Each structure stands twice: as structure tokens, then as C-alpha cells.
């Protein structure tokens, strides 16, 4: 199966391991990711916070590229990019005037009939049996918290993905590794997003609350599907530890990394070495034996 692939800026930099693990895992699962040629940034938070037109035009350019390159769907693993794309597409569909202005800006026809697929949806498309059959290792009894953050499920009327308050789709994927998703409170709570650099204090406070609640509910790791969530929860744990001596390290894994590990892929090729918070507690809990297949 072929599908368009838009990594987005983070995956070429701070979230390199996300990109790495995605490419490895999906090739293992027989999916060919066709990277959108000459893709450009979606504008992320900064565009929509300051210039609405820009925030629609930047994704629009990429959608038109996809169309020209014959792609029917693009897989966007970064939740923030995903969100910008679905919203831009929705706004252009709803507002022909806006679409026209965008077309003047990108000097092309704006195409909105391109499917946009997020990380969890990608896994949902793959036959469960295939993942189970390819599984090499198991995480029996290991408790994890699935963290959706803001931008996968919101605004629900536009993303139309899962439930805005009590999503469960990521848990269904996680269960394929044998791990046990915990019921916890902050699945869709915000981590502070782009305040990471401008208002670190905000991010520290929010991230800490999220990590603490996961820990209180028994989670031994948090699974994410967004580079921004990852960097706030992973990178900022050092600062959290500095402020709170009681703080216990909480490994933060991308969903693709978790699946990759259970498929038996080695941690280097998945990029686990690039994390700031130690991931060893997860790695050590994977069964070493090959799981018997039913």
C-alpha cells in the first residue's frame, strides 16, 4: 500500500526519532510512505496565532502539491501539522471566498479532496492480525498511559476523530503490544504546546500535572503521537526534576516506537537513544522470548 507522507519540520529535527521509527515500522508492516516532494512548513502555531490567511495558505500549498503528485491521501504524524491541515481544508471547503484568496496566494488551484490521516488512524488501518502475527516481543502487564494531547481530537467537529473527551482509539493500538493502558484523567489535557520556549514555566507546570496523574494511575510510561507533546513531556522532565526532587522519571514513547519495539525492531533504528528521559524501564519490560502465535 502506498500513501503520501508529510513529516513536517519537527520530524526533521527535534523529533528525528519519530520519523525514524515511523519509516521503520511502516516498512515492516508493508506500507510504502511516499514523501511529499518539496513540502513546506504548515506554519504551525505561529501562523495561526498571527495571520489567519497565512495559516490556511501554507497547508494549502502542500495539499496542492499532493494533488499534483497524484497522492490521494497524506499521512501526517505530527498532531500539530495534522490539525493545521484538517482545519485549513475544512475552512476552505466551508468558505469559498477564503479558498479564492488562498488560491491567489499560492497561485494554484487549491485542492481539498485530499485525505488526511493521523498517526492513530494509520495504525487503525492496518489489520490487527498482521501486527499480532509480526509481533516478536510482548509487554505483558506493563502499564502505560495513552496521551492524545489537544490537537488529535480537537476540534472534534472538524477532525471527526474519536471522542473529544474520552478517546480510546490509541489504547486499542497499544493493547496489541500486550501493554495495559490505564484509565487516567489527562489524556486530552494540554501540555502547554508552543509555550515551551516563551513560557517554560507554563509547560513545566502543565507537563508535570500530566506526568503525575499518569503515575498516580499506575502508568509506567506515557505514549504519545505528537512531537510537541513529546518534547514537552520528555525534554522538560529535567527541569521538572530540578524543581521537584520527588519527581520520578517517566519514559515518554512515541506510539510508533512502542509498536516498533514489539515488532522486534532494535532501539537504535527506532531512535530511542535520542530521548532525554531514560527509556530503559520500558525496554527492560519487554519479554525477550518470541511470543507464541496462536
Amino acid at each position, binding site marked *: 500500500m502506498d500513501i503520501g507522507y508529510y513529516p513536517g519540520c519537527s520530524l526533521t529535527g527535534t523529533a528525528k526519532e519519530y520519523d525514524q521509527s515511523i519509516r521503520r515500522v511502516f516498512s515492516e508492516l508493508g506500507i510504502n510512505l511516499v514523501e511529499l516532494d518539496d513540502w513546506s512548513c504548515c*506554519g504551525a502555531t505561529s501562523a495561526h496565532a498571527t495571520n489567519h490567511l497565512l495559516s490556511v495558505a501554507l497547508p494549502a*500549498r502542500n495539499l496542492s502539491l499532493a494533488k499534483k503528485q497524484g497522492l490521494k491521501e497524506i499521512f501526517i504524524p505530527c498532531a500539530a501539522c495534522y490539525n493545521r491541515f484538517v482545519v485549513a481544508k475544512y475552512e476552505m471547503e466551508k468558505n469559498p471566498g477564503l479558498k479564492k484568496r488562498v488560491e491567489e496566494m499560492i497561485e494554484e488551484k487549491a485542492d481539498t479532496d485530499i485525505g488526511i490521516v493521523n498517526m492513530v488512524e494509520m495504525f487503525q488501518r492496518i489489520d490487527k492480525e498482521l501486527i499480532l502475527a509480526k509481533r516478536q516481543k510482548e509487554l505483558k502487564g506493563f502499564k502505560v498511559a495513552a496521551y492524545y494531547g489537544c490537537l488529535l481530537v480537537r476540534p472534534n467537529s472538524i477532525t471527526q476523530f474519536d471522542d473529544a473527551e474520552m478517546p480510546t482509539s490509541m489504547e486499542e493500538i497499544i493493547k496489541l503490544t500486550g501493554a495495559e493502558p490505564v484509565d487516567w484523567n489527562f489524556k486530552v489535557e494540554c501540555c502547554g504546546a508552543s*509555550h515551551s520556549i516563551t513560557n517554560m514555566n507554563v509547560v513545566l507546570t502543565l507537563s508535570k500535572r500530566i506526568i503525575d496523574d499518569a503515575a498516580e494511575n499506575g502508568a509506567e510510561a506515557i505514549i504519545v503521537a505528537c512531537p510537541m507533546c513529546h518534547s514537552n513531556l520528555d525534554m522538560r522532565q529535567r527541569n521538572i526534576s530540578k524543581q521537584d526532587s520527588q519527581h520520578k522519571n517517566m519514559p515518554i514513547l512515541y506510539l510508533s516506537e512502542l509498536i516498533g519495539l514489539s515488532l522486534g525492531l532494535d532501539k537504535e533504528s527506532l531512535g530511542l537513544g535520542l530521548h532525554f528521559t531514560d527509556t530503559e524501564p520500558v525496554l527492560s519490560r519487554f519479554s525477550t522470548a518470541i511470543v507464541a502465535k496462536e
Partner: protein
Amino acid sequence: MSSHSNAKHKERMTLADEIEELTGINPLKCYQCGKCSAGCPVRIFMKVSPNKVVRLVQLGLDDEALKSETIWMCAGCLTCSTRCPQNFDLAKFMDALKEIAIKKGVITRKDILKFHKAFLKQIEANGKAFEFGLIRDYKLATFNLFQDMDIAPEMFFKGKIKLFPHKIKNRDAIKKIFDKANKE
């Protein structure tokens, strides 16, 4: 139909009108229930609650609304927009206020705007975000050189930030988009 429309014959566009034009949302839809503020993750860092910013706009206290730090503190998490009983897209409202504040030059949190500008500058130049450049530009702009000094080197060594930007081929297209967007 005979013309019984209530077309606006206003001398001056109020901030509320401007927001409605920009976002398609009528600020009067908000009935001040406070559910947005109750669930806002950054509420504790705000002096003025999000619903109060809407109230200021409703009351025509335009300056106070534009000058509130709240609009810059909003993380755009969409919690409010998702839970608002009136379907009032408060996150979008906050974005619109920032956009207008920038146009009017009323900027309460220059540091946050500088971050956004630095970020967009990278895109404008390269077509992609270039994190080293971003952090460099932002730090230079805010003189906040030491924050994140602890993780930056490690990021660099882990290959997470590069010294030279990735550039897309068709930078011209991006330039045009920016030019036109800024002209509006």
C-alpha cells in the same frame, strides 16, 4: 423580499465587528458562562480570564481586550472551543485578537510575538522551520540567552538541531505567500 435587513450602518467598525469579519463568529454569542475559563489549562497564569476578554469586547472596551496578556498566553489548545455550550470558538477568537493587536501595534507580550516572528522568518526564508535559527533569532530578540542552555548542546549532539537549514526548492512560492499574506 422587501429590504427589511438590519444592515449595519456604523460609522466605525468596532473590535467586535472586526472579529466577526475575520472569524465569522459573533462575539455576542458568548453568554459568559465561564466554562472556557474553568477548563483553560493556562488559566492560572492569566490575570484576566478568557471569558472576561470576550466580555471586554462585548462591552466595547476594545483597548483593554487588545492589551490583555491573556490573548498571548492562550496556548491554542482548543479545550474551550470544544466545550463551549454556545459553539463559540474562543481559540479562534484569541487568534483574531492577536492578529488585530499586531496590526494595531498593541503588543503586550512582545516576547511571544518575537517567537512567532522568528519562527515565521525561518519559514519565509527556508520554507521549513529551522530550529537552530529559530532559537538563535528568538534568543537574540529577547536577550534570553541562557534559558535552555542546558539542553541545547545535547540537542545538537543528538542531531536534533542542525547548524544549517533545510531549504525547500521552491522558496519563491513561499516568499509570494508571505508577501501576499502580509499585504492583507
